[in-house]
């Protein structure tokens, strides 16, 4: 389970309200194809973002999520399909004409310019008058809490500060769409959590349509309105974080988003019988037969009392994770199960315990 409450309480200085007026746009990717040699990096993906929506593209390395974002930015030419911003087909427009703001994975501040000059760069390209440029740049820096660092150079800032300046630089031009290409991946864990909260807060304040690429499922679920899970150039499922977690449409989504136990069982008429319990099948109907059911660790119940109910099991390992504890147990037949439970239970390796299931619906694949 992702502890979003802890993420939301992460400390960060409160920034002043901004008057940056951004008109949010719709974004549509329709059957977009990108081919590298024989590899289809994007295999006809379609995705629509509502004005002001924050959508995360989530998937493993090489699934095409960054390619999709770069195609939207105009940094990659597409081989098929259409890309529209506010119903305008932008496929033929070069990057500098698409009116986007982008934050990159690598630090991308211009090293020969001060922070202020970096933030003013986009305004300079739009021939904004010097006085207005200065005001808006200061405003954007205040928005990310770096109003006092305008005269510094990039190498005088920490990684987190550099990415915040990059965010200010991307927003100061009031772009139609904000694109974030794994902007947090180079930062350490604590700064990453703080910055993603700040990004979300600013995005909500400005109401800017945002596409956020990440391979970190916790990050995607914590900040996005909707998450699109990608695999091999295709979108497996789009939904709210809750939908993805509770009702994954495919075993891949169940496996990739959060932890899952694979429990062998038998599917018959939409009901799975596995490990002595019955589960309703999630997703599309499947042919009857042996399956692997994906059961979440929090859907497994651990009972350490001597006369507990459920299947007999032996504790293999147990880890303290702060607000919860995760324990791995071995059932008969060498089946390993991961169980998430309250920290008040402290099983030790070798202990005999009992496990049961809450019986929530699960996704499944045919057993090999």
């Amino acid at each position, binding site marked *: 389970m992702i502890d979003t409450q802890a993420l939301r309480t992460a400390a960060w200085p409160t920034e002043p309200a901004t008057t940056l007026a951004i008109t949010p746009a719709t974004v549509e990717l329709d059957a977009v194809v990108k081919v590298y040699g024989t590899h289809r990096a994007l295999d006809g993906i379609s995705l629509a973002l509502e004005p002001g929506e924050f959508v995360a593209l989530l998937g493993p390395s090489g699934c095409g999520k960054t390619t999709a974002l770069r195609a939207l*930015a*105009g*940094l990659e030419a597409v081989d098929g399909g259409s890309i529209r911003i506010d119903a305008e087909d932008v496929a033929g427009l*070069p*990057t*500098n*004409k698409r*009116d*986007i*703001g*982008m934050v*990159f994975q*690598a*630090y*991308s*501040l*211009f*090293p*020969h310019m001060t922070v202020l000059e970096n933030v003013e*760069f*986009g305004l300079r*390209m*739009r021939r904004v008058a010097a006085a207005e440029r200065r005001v808006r740049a200061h405003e954007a820096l205040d928005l990310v809490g770096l109003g006092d660092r305008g005269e510094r150079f990039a*190498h005088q800032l920490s990684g987190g500060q550099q990415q915040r300046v*990059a965010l200010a*630089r*991307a927003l100061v*031009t009031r772009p139609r769409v904000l*694109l974030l290409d794994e902007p947090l991946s180079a930062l350490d864990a604590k700064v990453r959590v703080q910055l993603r909260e700040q990004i979300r807060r600013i995005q909500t304040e400005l109401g800017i349509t945002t596409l956020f690429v990440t391979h970190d499922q916790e990050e995607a679920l914590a900040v996005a309105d909707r998450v699109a899970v990608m695999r091999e150039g295709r979108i497996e499922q789009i939904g709210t974080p809750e939908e993805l977690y509770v009702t994954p449409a495919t075993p891949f989504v169940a496996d990739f988003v959060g932890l899952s136990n694979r429990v062998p069982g038998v599917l018959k008429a939409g009901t799975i019988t596995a490990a002595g319990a019955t589960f309703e099948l999630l997703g599309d109907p499947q042919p009857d037969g042996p399956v692997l059911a994906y059961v979440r660790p929090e859907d497994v119940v651990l009972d350490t009392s001597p006369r507990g109910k459920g299947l007999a099991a032996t504790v293999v390992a147990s880890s303290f994770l702060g607000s919860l504890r995760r324990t791995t147990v071995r059932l008969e037949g060498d089946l390993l199960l991961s169980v998430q439970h309250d920290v008040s239970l402290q099983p030790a390796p070798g202990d005999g315990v009992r496990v049961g299931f809450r019986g929530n619906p699960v996704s499944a694949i045919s057993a090999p």
Partner: protein
Amino acid sequence: MNRRLTGPVRLGLAPSPVTRVAILGVVAIVFAIPLLSLLEFSFRDGLSGGYTLAHWTGLFDPENARPYRTLFQSIGNSFLLAGVTVGIVLVVLLPTMLLVHISFPRLRRVLEFICIIPITVPAIVLVVGLAPVYSIVVQVFGGSVWTLAFAYGILVLPYAYRAIQANLDGVPVVTLVEAARSLGAGWPTVVARVLLPNLRRGVLAAAFITIAVVLGEFTIASLLNRRNLQTALLQISTSDGYVAAILALLSLAFAFVLLLIIGRIGSAGNRSNS
């Protein structure tokens, strides 16, 4: 045992400070003796055994302008050639390297190979190949001395390529270009406002190395019957050894100053990066 675990292991192969100073001293002497001898020779007053400033002052005396006119023309030719060659490096090589680095990274090895070829070909062999080419160059551009810069543009490729490539490798060029493009910059702006300021060190180093190489070039100019500083030096040394010695010293001093500037640019770049 503990020493091995806590610090670098000394194999005893590094020379002691005394040995290092001795080696440096010997090398310095090897370089200094001919230069000092040249300097001493330039002050000699013929066979009288005394010393005079006459050779130095005579070189810059307006009354001697006529006999040295050809010499100064040759020096002018060398500077003209250096300027045109630097222009070729900036207009042809630099954009090509940027294009390959940003848009065609797979061609980098090919470009590197092509740029290194001139250093493996002896100048005399190069001239054998260039001679028929120059018969056409003369028809198209005339026989002016500046046309020699086409050959020098090839000659300096290995040095200019290395200087620029070292800088390119140290800068996240692709990310900076993409960031600038996403902020609304067109290609000319990207090059002028983002790339060149960050490649200043490599470009200046390439330019100075080019000047140093061109000012020191003799073989190609001589065999293609063009006049430059080095051919003039050879010619004048047959009639006035003192002036030849003075000009050799001055050209060496000029090259030394250029190298110092390159070094300063490099260290300044390192400081700003750190």
